[in-house]
């Protein structure tokens, strides 16, 4: 029942929501999650192509790049719906963040190529510019015409499937945003198993050589990149909010149907109050994301920034808390791998840990607010 409530006069948002729900009906998220995990695959590329066909990829790319030119409001609706349905995909990074980085770049052939591929689903463009809530800049050095890159970046999703990475490099005291082919010589990958059972990679660059036309932004403004990350945070928050809402609903449904001592366990007052608190948390998360969206659509940069930090912190904590409590309410069934609720918890942890953790973001909020 909880979901983001936003004005939707022409019904566009509802349509987007429905389109994800229809998609999910034929491709149940938990089933995909289990399949990926079983095969140690990092993403479902076939589904990614279908998402491209549905028009969900590069939604926020401007029209001149072939995108839909839609805003974070529309993206958030899709992300929320994906979260509810637990459809696994690198949407936040390989669609939202990549799109915003490309949108921020000046016109170039490489940019057009990537944008086109991203929208079509034919290029899987994975940004690898951030870890632990902070930007990661590789060491770059000009060698004649080419740029030599060294360094490593942790926590990269979809690194197996990626066709291109987007990276930041420090070259001669300037920050460059670069496109990096995934088959670049000198680029290697070390995998860890992520909480969802799919790989999370560390990219290791040893003397990668990149042609000058791969440079997307020569002198990237930290603020521009930060803004892109903030919007990606809102997408992640919306997905987390969807997870929170659905996990609450599952807890509600399970406890309403589960009979113990001759009564549904949802009729016990302790369970009822706990459900009320979880519902309230899910509602708070949804409202926090809406708040961030509305500030981002306005003019006040500082207010937007704070609203984003708040939304990501709230949605991360709510999703994880609700899924944890839901597992407990499921009883022994919640502790089985067969039950989907555990998958919701694992995804909540995965998304909660990316682009800055709740506690870190809260402290950041207060520091930035007080710096006024």
């Amino acid at each position, binding site marked *: 029942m909880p979901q983001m409530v936003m004005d939707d006069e022409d019904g566009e948002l509802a349509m987007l929501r429905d389109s994800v729900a229809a998609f999910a009906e034929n491709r149940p998220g938990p089933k995909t999650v289990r399949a990926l995990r079983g095969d140690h695959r990092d993403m479902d590329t076939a589904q990614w192509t279908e998402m491209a066909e549905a028009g969900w990829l590069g939604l926020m790319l401007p029209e001149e790049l072939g995108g839909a030119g839609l805003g974070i409001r529309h993206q958030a609706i899709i992300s929320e719906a994906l979260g509810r349905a637990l459809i696994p995909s690198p949407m936040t990074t390989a669609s939202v963040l990549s799109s915003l980085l490309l949108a921020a770049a000046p016109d170039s052939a490489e940019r057009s190529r990537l944008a086109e591929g991203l929208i079509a689903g034919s290029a899987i463009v994975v940004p690898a510019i951030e870890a632990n809530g902070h930007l990661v800049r590789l060491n770059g050095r000009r060698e004649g015409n080419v740029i030599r890159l060294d360094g490593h970046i942790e926590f990269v999703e979809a690194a197996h499937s990626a066709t291109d990475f987007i990276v930041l490099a420090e070259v001669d005291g300037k920050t460059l945003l670069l496109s990096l082919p995934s088959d670049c010589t000198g680029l290697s990958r070390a995998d860890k198993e992520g909480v969802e059972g799919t790989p999370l990679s560390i990219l290791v660059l040893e003397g990668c050589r990149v042609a000058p036309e791969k440079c997307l932004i020569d002198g990237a403004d930290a603020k521009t990149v930060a803004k892109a990350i903030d919007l990606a945070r809102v997408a992640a928050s919306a997905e987390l909010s969807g997870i929170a809402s659905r996990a609450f609903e599952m807890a509600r449904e399970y406890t309403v149907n589960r009979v113990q001592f001759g009564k549904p366990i949802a009729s016990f007052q302790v369970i009822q109050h706990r459900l009320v608190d979880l519902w309230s948390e899910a509602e708070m998360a949804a409202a926090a994301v809406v708040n961030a969206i509305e500030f981002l659509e306005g003019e006040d940069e500082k207010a937007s920034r704070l609203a984003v930090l708040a939304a990501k912190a709230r949605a991360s904590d709510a999703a994880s808390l609700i899924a944890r409590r839901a597992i407990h309410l499921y009883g022994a069934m919640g502790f089985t791998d067969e039950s989907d609720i555990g998958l919701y918890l694992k995804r909540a942890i995965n998304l909660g840990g990316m682009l800055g953790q709740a506690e870190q973001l809260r402290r950041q909020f*207060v520091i930035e607010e007080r710096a006024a």
Partner: protein
Amino acid sequence: MMQTDWNSLPDEEFREIFRDWVDDNCPSELRYMRKQRPTYEEVKDWYQALSEKGWLSPVWPVEHGGMGLNPAKHMIYVEEWARLGCPRIPDHGIGLVGPLLIQYGTAEQKAEFLPKILSGEHMWCQGYSEPNAGSDLASLRTSAVLEDGHFVVNGQKIWTTLAHCANWIFVLVRTDKEAKPQRGISVLLVDMSLPGVTVRPIANLRGEKDFCEVFFDSVKVPAHRLVGEVNQGWTLAKSVLGHERIFLGAPTRPEYALGRLEKLATSRGAFDDPAFLSRYAKLRLDLYDLGSSFERFAKILRSGGELGADVSMLKIFNTELYQRITEEMLMLAGEESRYNDDLETENGDVDAMNLFLDSRAPAIFGGSNEIQRNILAKAVLGLPG
């Protein structure tokens, strides 16, 4: 007394007009009062200023001397009031009796009572709770028996806010003992100077006498003081609240308390301690996010919608956050938490203990948070049993 169609103004224009006037007219010595519930005598100047301006009653229709504000404008009214630190005025007449009479009163009742509320001549209090009917109003026992054109009232009310400073009380009384518990209740308007009415103030944890017991010993109330139909009082009493339930969730008190916490923390250098910063950040963000959720409901009112039972989530979060903030304040105070007296800082005193004790109340009053959760479980989540 100038009257305007306030609702036709753009929100921001109304906000500016209202704020400017309030800022000019609310006496500075009444701003940011330590007391949550000052008496009429204490805030008389402000009450009268509002009354003269015609701005005392934001929601009453214009024909009755109110501003006739729609919910959106009313929100602005409340917001600016809080932002400027204006004191709460005794508002049972304005907030409860007025709407009750406007909706259910006879023409005579309206003519008699509404002007006297606006003038400050009548101070009202609210006789709902009884010693054995706290959260459970349906079991109330104060009785009223109709004899010779009078209701003879016997019984006792409790937690009657500011009854010792009021001259009128509207009471829920049982007029039919045979009916089911929630039926058989009526609303009476009672002149507190009638023989048989006794008031005993009760001190609270902070030593203030905000509320009272009111005893009725064969008080003879003329029959025309009945509001609405006999035995329909329960429905009446519930219906007057309307959109104002949202204000139980307005983050006013936690906001004030967090400001005080920040002041104390700044003075004590606590922001240099990451442990404090981390706990403060949690509280700050809870307050911030409460604001986002409040705004969600406010938007419904602004667009002309009606609030559902779900708005109670704000009240729960709000009152529990208020407690957590004041608990943090005592922790921050260190050994100074042993003081009743306000704590000194370079920028004025911080009433840590006052707020800590005050924060015990809102989670209890206005329907305890347990009752709120019971209602949400049933009415919003649709849980069984």
